[in-house]
């Protein structure tokens, strides 16, 4: 039977995993693309059906197939929704590299992907791009180009990138973190912090806040200097070799530090790093180490949930809408801890957002390569958020922050939950710490 | 109308089938009659009548299964009596069943129902299976003896409201409900608008009323607009709310409902319901009209009825199952032409109005039906398939078909 399959022999999706799907459809309402267009093949059930047919060799790996695999945001909302326990996460991760290897992309798609991967995982290059973007805005180019209608005529992918640029400042672009942040008071833990590639450039203040809060709660925080991109973006895009390369390098870097946990404040990075064991399982030199490393990875909210609050929180009166990042909620099952973290601040009221399980459309590089669907999802999410009339929106993923910011129509403060706690501990008004 | 020369009085399904086959051979047009409590719709032009009153009796009843099968000529009241021995009932209480001995088949054919339709729906919601005989003698069964059943088309639904035009109902299987341990009624003197609002509050407070009926028997008659106005101020009409349940539960809900209803509330009596029932049935000489609206249109309808009663000097009374949007208007004490004028005017806004009782001579003044419903072409298509020669109750739905 194997000879009839359309997949190559390098880690194709397994027949057992495909057979777990009983076609009940419980995944449909959780799938963002299905919610938008209502087409069966853009649902988890439909995608699994296509994978199943390809596995049987009944359909080829072609642009039709890749269109529906690429359209998947990888938000994994379907996984907890599945009563049969189908591992869609494993299936999609297995199929993406097959598509990447066998289906030639259109020219524009290839260019965009190449550009994205040439810039985002490289802080130095991203910094240059961000500076360019900053100048572009500061010098009024943005406004005049928009006025001239130039932006409207750009390809949707480029327009998306243009609109996603966050309002960063020069200082935060070039700020560096201390290599070691000592614990305040008696040390309870020693942790290593992932700075993230895009994160450190665009959200350096979130990293700073993370280190301060961890320290205030008794963690000695090590920030390995040589660390690079964790490979999450590559992994979610099916660039398996690149992802594996980055994973090995990150493991090498962090293994040099003796710590209790590796702390991550970006949901997408955390979920990938927790899967290093799976990614490198065929690499004899790394399989065990990867599994060990993966087991030590914690989201910052997980770490703090283990540590009864020690630092005093000052009051912040705010209604905070908490947005579950897919890679935190669906991929890592972390839903309660960030809410508890926010509620540890007196005066904070945490509200849930309608359609909470539907992805905001950020999804790694999705909003750059599938801009139309991402835009519709972004608008939908922004509207859902605004329906709760929050003062603040908190979400624990850089991509979500960028995406949601782009579509919000009202002036709402957007933060990582850790920034709320940081502000409360330092006794400064929320949002002030960045000014 | 031709003279009826033949009366078939079958005692069971086989005889009914034979009657239909025989009449088909003879090319007779048939009227179908039970105890004759309903005159709904147009007058039938028939050569023979099928009298169902000999087709009586239970076919099967197992109280544990909570279903009962009866022959269609069985009086609903007789059936209820049998069920009562097992503390059960069919959740149907059309007034004419108790007042006049309406048969199960007749109630199905008219889709009639009483105040309990608020909770339990109409007869279509209680019937779970049916055996019918078509004009050509075909015996067809659908549904079954279990309350949950989606096998095949639900022909029983189709026969609801067919007024004998699709076939003759031979046997009916009904679901039964346990009789509540206790029941109590709240009676609140109030006009329709207030009744609707209060009823809505009782529902919203989850007091689960089994019936929410507003009735108004005050004579309107000559004297008119001023009098109607005055009467409205005197808290015209009565809201009747029935609670079914456990002894404590009903007492508690009645207490809470009284508190919500305020000073004009009192505990209702069976007489309240009987009065509403008598109104819905009417008496010889009356015209009784049944019409449907969206529930919140009741106050508007009451105003219209008041106005028309005044204009045409007719005594109009009314009872409404508020949240089913079903209203029964009884016209009394005026010439047929006045009744006709009221009905005609009401039909302008409510084309679906059904005349259930015709005052003498009213048929000379008034068409059997108003404008047809949107799906009339489907009604015609179904009729053609079931009775292609138009032998069953011809004229009943004239001029629709």
């Amino acid at each position, binding site marked *: 039977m194997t000879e009839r399959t359309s997949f190559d022999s390098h880690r194709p999706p397994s027949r057992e995993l495909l*057979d*777990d799907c009983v*076609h009940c*459809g*419980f995944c449909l309402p959780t799938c963002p693309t*299905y919610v938008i*267009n*209502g*087409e069966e093949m853009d649902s988890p059930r439909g995608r699994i*059906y296509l994978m199943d047919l390809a596995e049987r060799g009944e359909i080829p790996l072609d642009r039709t197939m890749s269109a529906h695999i690429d359209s998947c945001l990888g938000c994994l909302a379907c996984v907890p929704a599945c*009563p049969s*326990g189908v591992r869609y996460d494993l299936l999609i991760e297995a199929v993406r590299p097959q598509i990447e290897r066998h289906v030639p992309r259109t020219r524009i798609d290839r260019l965009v992907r190449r550009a994205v991967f040439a810039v985002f995982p490289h802080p130095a290059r991203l910094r240059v791009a961000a500076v360019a973007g900053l100048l572009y805005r500061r010098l009024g180019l943005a406004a005049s180009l928009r006025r001239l209608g130039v932006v409207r005529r750009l390809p949707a992918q480029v327009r998306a990138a243009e609109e996603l640029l966050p309002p960063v400042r020069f200082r935060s672009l070039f700020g560096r973190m201390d290599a070691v942040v000592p614990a305040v008071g008696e040390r309870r833990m020693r942790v290593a912090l992932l700075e993230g590639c895009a994160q450190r450039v665009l959200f350096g203040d979130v990293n700073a806040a993370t280190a301060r809060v961890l320290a205030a709660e008794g963690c000695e925080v090590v920030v390995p200097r040589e660390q690079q991109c964790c490979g999450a973006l590559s992994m979610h895009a099916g660039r398996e070799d690149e992802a594996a390369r980055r994973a090995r390098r990150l493991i090498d870097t962090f293994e040099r530090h003796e710590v209790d946990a590796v702390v991550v404040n970006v949901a997408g990075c955390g979920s990938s790093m927790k899967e290093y064991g799976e990614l490198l399982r065929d690499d004899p030199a790394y399989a065990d180490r990867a599994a060990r490393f993966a087991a030590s990875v914690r989201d910052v909210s997980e770490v703090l949930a283990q540590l009864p609050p020690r630092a005093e929180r000052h009051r912040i009166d705010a209604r905070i809408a908490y947005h579950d990042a897919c890679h935190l909620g669906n991929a890592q099952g972390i839903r309660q801890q960030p809410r508890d973290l926010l509620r540890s601040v007196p005066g904070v009221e945490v509200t849930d957002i309608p359609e909470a399980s539907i992805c905001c459309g950020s999804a790694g590089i999705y909003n750059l390569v599938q801009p139309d669907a991402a835009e519709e999802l972004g608008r939908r999410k922004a509207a859902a958020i605004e329906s709760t009339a929050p003062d603040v929106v908190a979400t624990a993923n850089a991509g979500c922050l960028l995406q949601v910011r782009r579509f919000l129509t009202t002036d709402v403060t957007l933060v990582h939950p850790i920034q709320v706690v940081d502000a409360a501990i330092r006794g400064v008004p929320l949002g002030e710490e960045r000014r | 109308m031709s003279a009826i020369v033949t009366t078939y009085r079958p005692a069971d399904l*086989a005889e009914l089938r034979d009657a239909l086959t025989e009449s088909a051979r003879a090319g007779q047009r048939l009227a179908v009659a039970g105890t004759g409590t309903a005159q709904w719709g147009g007058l039938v032009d028939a050569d023979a009548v099928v009298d169902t009153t000999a087709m009586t009796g239970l076919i099967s009843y*197992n109280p*544990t*299964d909570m279903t009962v*099968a009866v022959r269609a000529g069985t009086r609903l009241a007789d059936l209820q009596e049998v069920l009562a021995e097992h503390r*059960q009932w069919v959740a149907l209480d059309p007034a004419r069943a108790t007042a006049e001995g309406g048969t199960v088949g007749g109630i199905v054919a008219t889709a009639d129902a009483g105040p309990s339709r608020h909770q339990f*729906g*109409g007869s279509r919601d209680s019937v779970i299976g049916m*055996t019918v005989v078509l004009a050509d003698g075909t*015996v067809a*069964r*659908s549904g079954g*003896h*279990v309350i*949950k059943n*989606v*096998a095949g*088309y*639900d022909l029983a*639904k*189709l026969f*609801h*409201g067919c007024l004998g035009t699709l076939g003759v109902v031979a*046997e009916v299987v009904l679901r039964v*409900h*346990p009789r509540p341990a206790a029941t109590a009624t709240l009676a609140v003197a109030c006009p329709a608008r207030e009744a609707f609002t209060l009823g*809505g509050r009782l*529902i919203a*407070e*989850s*007091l*689960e009323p089994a019936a929410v009926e507003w009735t108004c028997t005050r004579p309107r008659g000559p004297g008119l607009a001023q009098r109607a106005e005055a009467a409205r101020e005197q808290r015209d009409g009565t809201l009747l709310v029935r609670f079914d349940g*456990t002894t404590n539960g009903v007492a508690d809900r009645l207490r809470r409902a009284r508190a919500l209803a305020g000073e004009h509330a009192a505990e209702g009596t069976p007489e309240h319901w009987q009065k509403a029932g008598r109104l819905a049935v009417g008496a010889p000489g009356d015209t009784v009209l*049944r019409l*449907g609206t*969206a529930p919140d249109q009741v106050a508007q309808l009451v105003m219209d009825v008041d106005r028309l009663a005044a204009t045409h000097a007719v005594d109009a009374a009314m009872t409404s199952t508020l*949240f*089913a*949007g*079903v209203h029964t208007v009884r016209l009394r004490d005026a010439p047929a032409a006045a009744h006709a004028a009221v009905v005609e005017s009401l039909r302008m806004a409510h084309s*679906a109005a*059904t005349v259930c009782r015709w005052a003498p001579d009213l048929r000379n003044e008034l068409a059997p039906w108003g404008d047809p*419903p*949107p*799906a009339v072409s*489907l009604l015609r298509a179904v009729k053609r*398939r*079931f009775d292609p020669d138009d032998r069953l109750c011809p004229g009943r739905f004239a001029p629709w078909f």
Partner: protein
Amino acid sequence: MVIFRIVEMTSRAVGTSWPAELAAVLGPDSVITDPARLRTYECDGLTGYRVVPAAVALPRSTEEVAAAVGVCARHGISFVARGAGTGLSGGALPVADGIVISLQRLRRILHVDPVNLRAVVEPGVTNLDISRAAASHGLYYAPDPSSQQVCTIGGNVAENSGGAHCLKYGFTVNHVLAAEVVLADGTVTTLGGQSQHLPGFDLLGAFVGSEGTLGIVTQVTVRLLAKPAQVRTMVADFATVAAAGDAVTAIVAAGIVPAAVEMLDNLAIQAVGASTRSVYTADTAAALVVELDGPPDDVAELFDDVQRICRDQGSTKIMVAADAEERALIWQGRKAAFAAVGRISPNYFVQDGVVPRGRLAEVLGRIAAMADEAGIRVANVFHAGDGNLHPLVLYSEADGEHDRAERLSTEIAELCVELGGSLSGEHGIGADKACSMPRMFGEDDLATMLRLREAFDPAGLCNPGKVFPTPRLCGERPGPYRPHPLETAGVIERL
């Protein structure tokens, strides 16, 4: 390799210009003709039957549905309406050379009317979303099929869907006030209306549950109910399935109408236990979920009665849900049970049959004996309160058990008929059970039903091959007629 039977159902005439016409009326983005994409529509929740349609249309409005059906009518092409594709009887199985009309782009909730206690929605709205939209008014939509979070109201109307709480509240047909319908000739009409009183015969009642064979619903007006003041739920364990069945009979006999009475046997409990935070006792032979709702005093009294009855009937343990969260866990397990069985068996059939409530214990015993004899495991999870069984026939395709399991499954459905019940309580006849229909209905019964179909759809384009046995589907003679057991028992007569 799994072997699937492809049922051949070919529509009459296939012209050449219709795909272009379809694309012209709907727009190219709303018509799928690519072979690989079409494959994803080849089955619904019942995967044993697969037919690839010639095209899939995704209209966005009533007008577009009517236009698509109009194209079919002009060209004599069969069409099958499809909602979320969760049906378990193959009701949305496509017709070869026919088109599938997906209603997944008609998903607007048009109006929630708390004053008149109703909502107007498009057919692609999920059952649960109606209740969500009504929640802020303290209202909800009562019928609750287990797939309520995904199944659509359009599908519910087609199948007359039930659910756990139908014991007290009735089925879809009891909660639909009006439906806008596109008929097989492409015309649009309205069945039902604003009120319970409608002159003329009850076309709406006949349409609901007609499994998509009379037309396509494009707008539905449903009744909304006030949320009950109190809900109390318990799980009562029993040492035998029969004892649990007897307890159900005793509760009903006591004149209590619970909101729901559900039963799970041990195999089903094992499946549920493997999938969710299970609240069920892992080693009990059977568990009854009993839920009462209504005004507090009534519920309190009857809830005590039910507990007493369960104890009298030998319940080994009663767990009362302490709060909404525990209740949710009980229901989460129950409602996910079908799909959860996928965790304990590679393949399974979901059966759906009904027996009179008094015969629950008997039928369960006979099913167990039949399963033993066939050497096939059968899990039971079902709506015990109304006698609606859902035996799950577990088998392994790989071990060649398919045919044996399928036979057993069919025999169980026919056993239900033999005991005076029905072939289907809520999943419908669809493609799956059409051949068993002669077990329940005589030729004249079926012919009379077909008169209704001909009145609605004289050309037979609307979901052909479903509900009614055809020689093509069921062999030359569509099933032998045998006297219905109720006939033999003298309960019914057939002439």
